[in-house]
């Protein structure tokens, strides 16, 4: 489980250097330029392999083909619709999961019984991969969005709850004592002190939950999905696989990666304009 350990600064991911070490050419480049060059080289190598190797087009297609199919899929709405369907289900699960996680954690912080319940549930349920729950969810809730939401909840609740608990536990005892002295109790204490005080950890939990949830829902949709235009991106991938539309399969994978990167970026922005700006950054 990923804990709140964000200590990156300025959005960069450079390795720490010894004091006084000379900056090489590569390291001197700004992060976007470095990543851009790497991307271009990878795409060029990919296209070169496809052009020179004579690989079967039913196994492997080049980036140009993939780009064409990606644009076509977005333009005709099939890929856009599939992605939006997946994001809608994930968003709904995220809201429910965050609410459940906060409620469970607050209960755990206020009572020993609640703490034991959270510890027991977390220890037993969080190691179960979301997809392992899917057959049971289908049995109980049918071939429906509800089954996907149930599976997603198991992927989403625990990262948020664990990180929130850790965040609350790291709030200074003095601050908590002061808040009690001025009469803050229960929900008021949670809203005024506990949640804001553990914001870096909450963000880290949300980020982990998002990553777990995104992988889980795509996997779950590969197993079953509503038909026709009702299916998400995993369902779309499965359809393309069955009909040997390899370029569309690649396009779907590229889109999944792009959406993943965009949402990671969104979390980074939220982190920058909140906890970093407010000097609340958690240390490792």
């Amino acid at each position: 489980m990923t804990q709140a350990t964000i200590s990156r600064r300025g959005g960069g991911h450079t390795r720490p250097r010894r004091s006084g070490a000379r900056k090489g050419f590569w390291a001197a480049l700004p992060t976007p330029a470095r990543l851009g060059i790497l991307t271009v080289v990878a795409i060029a190598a990919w296209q070169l392999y496809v052009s020179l190797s004579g690989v079967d087009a039913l196994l492997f297609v080049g980036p140009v083909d993939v780009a064409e199919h990606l644009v076509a899929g977005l333009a005709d709405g099939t890929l856009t619709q599939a992605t939006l369907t997946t994001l809608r289900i994930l968003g709904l699960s995220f809201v429910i999961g965050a609410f459940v996680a906060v409620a469970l954690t607050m209960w755990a912080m206020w009572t020993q019984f609640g703490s034991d319940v959270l510890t027991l549930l977390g220890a037993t349920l969080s190691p179960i991969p979301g997809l392992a729950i899917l057959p049971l969810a289908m049995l109980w809730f049918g071939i429906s969005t509800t089954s996907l939401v149930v599976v997603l909840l198991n992927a989403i609740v625990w990262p948020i709850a664990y990180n929130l608990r850790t965040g609350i536990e790291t709030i200074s005892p003095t601050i908590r004592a002061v808040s009690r002295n001025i009469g803050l109790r229960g929900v008021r204490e949670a809203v005024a002190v506990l949640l804001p005080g553990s914001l870096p950890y909450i963000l880290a939990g949300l980020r982990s939950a998002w990553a777990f949830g995104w992988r889980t829902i795509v996997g779950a949709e590969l197993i079953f999905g509503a038909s026709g235009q009702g299916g998400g991106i995993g369902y779309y991938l499965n359809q393309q696989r069955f009909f040997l539309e390899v370029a569309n399969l690649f396009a779907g994978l590229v889109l999944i990666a792009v959406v993943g990167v965009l949402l990671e970026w969104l979390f980074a922005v939220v982190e920058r304009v909140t906890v970093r700006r407010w000097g609340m950054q958690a240390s490792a």
Partner: protein
Amino acid sequence: MLGAVLASLALLSGCADSGGASGPSTVKIGYQQSVLYVPLLVMKEKGWLSEQVPEVDLQWTQLASGAALRDAMVTGDLQIGMIGIGAFNVGLSKGLDWKYMMSNADLDAAVMVSDPGIKTFEDLARSKPRISTIAPDSPQAFMLKIAARQYLGDPNALDESLVTLDAPSAVQALQAGQIDADTATSPSRYLEEGAGAHAVLTSNDVFAGGLLGVGPVAREGFKEDNQAFSEAFVRQLGRAVRWVQDNPEQALDLVSAELFGPNSNRDLLLKSVKNINWTVEPKNVLDYSTKSAELGVTDRAASSEDDMIFADLVEIAKNSFDSPAQEDSK
């Protein structure tokens, strides 16, 4: 980086032995878990093929779906795959150089519904149903399209109703009322029938005269390089298909444990084996290919039946099926 990694994996997966002019040293044969593969397993258990080609190392692999078998044949991991007409036709339309060596059995699908108030396919369509199929490229899914065109005037009328489920999940879902209909094959259709469901449409209603359900498929290069092996294969499988038709109980006893495990429902499987139309003749394959292109399921149709079957091998299989060996008749 990603491209290089994927390229390496693709290269690795394409390194399987595909035989040669002097005959194959190893042949990998893929199949699925279904009663339709009883003859293949009979051929294996009785050692008929290995007796004919003792120099060949025969490897038998069970995979989960026709698409998985097709993928394995594309990469060269399998030399012969027992593949249904749906997955085969999609591969063919994408330019895969493969053909049926013979048939094994006709399709025996039925649209099963549990609501006694639904008497006909039109009744079902009117009820805004949820209908399961085993795979979107399956002949069962295509059967619904043809039926929708035939009975409802719109081949796409039920597209939004389809749910992809494996056979056991579909049986369970139908019983639980989570779906309204299941396009089931044997033995699921009999299992559902036993639980009170009834058929509102069968594959014979849609594909008059029958449709190839499953048969062995080989790529053209493999067949050309290994003609003698290919002939031996279809001769022995044709013999096994006939033997299963004539001896369903013995056939089931022979392969049931390997194909279905020790706790399978014997009565149900026997009913299936007895009711399946065992045949070596690929039926209506060109019609299937033509209609699927017409309805936009595939990009293009085969131009003739010769594009879809190895006619010389089918002829050998027919001879074998029609003239069972004397020892097989005992």
